[in-house]
């Protein structure tokens, strides 16, 4: 009974103390309350603005970072660049590029690469244009080619427009005027010519039969479809081949003594990335699976070549029975010394 009384007393005492404490508080005036509400509103507004601003400002950096990470992971960008560059080496006769000078730009989930292409005419390399390729993620758009050539290969290849033809293929009408054109080019100039052979032969055999004072630049390889000049679905194809000489250009895949092996490695790489290679090449079909299998089975045999040298020396090729036809490419002033 006494415990209960004590409890009641403690409670009353605590209550009195609390009430006294509350009475000691100075309640806000109306002006103070308005001030607090104003301050709260301002803080809330400022917080909202700052957080919204932060989220908005994060969009561009996040997308940029995501794009860079997309292209950097798995060496994706380098692989795309490699495939594009190597497609030029094996599909464009006597054309090369300097990978060291290749420029790239990464956009939002897209990449643009552009590079200059060169041709050896006589003893000098001439810049003959540039390629500009846009990639959306890893899918390339058709390249924008700006070639400054007097006699460029046709943008849309067909049987009539190709410069090198297989021994079993019909010669286009324009091929018959090649020797005559070569005769009319003045001496003291250097030229690039495309020759078609009468029979397929080993690259070494071709090198042996050529006169000394000229340079073999590019070899068109027999891939089993070159006689028909179309793939199995009837889409026109262009020659596949490789540079015949050691290429001292930094990072060139043909900076090797064994260009044949480098060529086969490139074909294998392109086969694994055929969609990209087909977009970059002129021909809208590369049929790399079948053509690579044919080359592996039959070895590397050539049916055409690009040769450069002094014009008067090139004319001597007409005496070779192995050469079926010739087409003149670019002609430049004398630089053979």
């Amino acid at each position, binding site marked *: 009974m006494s415990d209960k009384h004590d409890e009641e007393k403690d409670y009353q005492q605590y209550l009195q103390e609390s009430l006294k404490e509350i009475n000691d*508080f100075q*309640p806000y005036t109306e002006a103070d309350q308005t001030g607090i509400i104003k301050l709260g509103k301002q803080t809330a507004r400022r917080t909202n603005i*700052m957080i919204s601003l932060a989220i908005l400002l994060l969009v561009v950096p996040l997308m940029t970072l995501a794009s860079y990470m997309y292209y950097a992971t798995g060496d994706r960008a380098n692989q795309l660049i490699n495939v594009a560059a190597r497609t030029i080496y094996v599909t464009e006769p006597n054309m090369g590029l300097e990978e060291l000078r290749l420029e790239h730009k990464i956009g939002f989930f897209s990449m643009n690469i552009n590079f200059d292409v060169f041709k050896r005419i006589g003893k000098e390399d001439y810049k003959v244009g540039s390629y500009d390729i846009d990639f959306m993620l890893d899918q390339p758009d058709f390249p924008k080619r700006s070639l400054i050539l007097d006699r460029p290969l046709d943008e849309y290849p067909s049987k009539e427009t190709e410069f090198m033809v297989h021994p079993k293929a019909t010669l286009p009408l324009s091929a018959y005027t090649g020797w005559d054109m070569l005769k009319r080019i003045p001496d003291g100039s250097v030229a690039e010519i495309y020759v078609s052979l009468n029979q397929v032969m080993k690259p070494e055999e071709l090198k042996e039969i050529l006169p000394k004072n000229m340079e073999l630049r590019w070899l068109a390889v027999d891939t089993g479809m070159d006689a028909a000049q179309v793939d199995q679905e009837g889409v026109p194809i262009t020659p596949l081949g490789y540079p015949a000489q050691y290429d001292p250009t930094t990072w060139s895949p043909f900076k090797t003594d064994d260009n044949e092996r480098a060529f086969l490695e490139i074909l294998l790489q392109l086969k694994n990335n055929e969609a990209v290679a087909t977009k970059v090449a002129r021909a809208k079909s590369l049929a790399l699976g079948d053509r690579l299998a044919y080359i592996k089975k039959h070895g590397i045999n050539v049916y055409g070549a690009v040769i450069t040298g002094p014009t008067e020396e090139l004319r001597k090729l007409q005496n070779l029975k192995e050469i079926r036809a010739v087409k003149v490419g670019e002609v430049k002033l004398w630089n053979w010394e």
Partner: protein
Amino acid sequence: MELGIKLKGGGQRLPTISGFLSFLIALISLAGLNVALLMKVPVFPGIFIVQLPIVGFFLGLFGLIARRRSRLYAIWGLALCTFLLLFTLLMIIASLSINPKP
């Protein structure tokens, strides 16, 4: 009565000054980075992606250890400055690995 009680600890839950500064610095850095990215400048201005975020990072840390005040701004400032520094690092790594040149 409620407001009266709050009088005792008036302004306790306001954000810290250092946290606010950290958040503000992060926003300025982000804005600078956005301009640089959108204008496609060849070299990013270091002040927006290194110096300012480092300052903001430490201000954010300082704001985070303050007691009995709102840490909201400090957390945002710290997170954004960390992102900016991480962004710089990852971009350097990615840029060096894409089309590397000697």
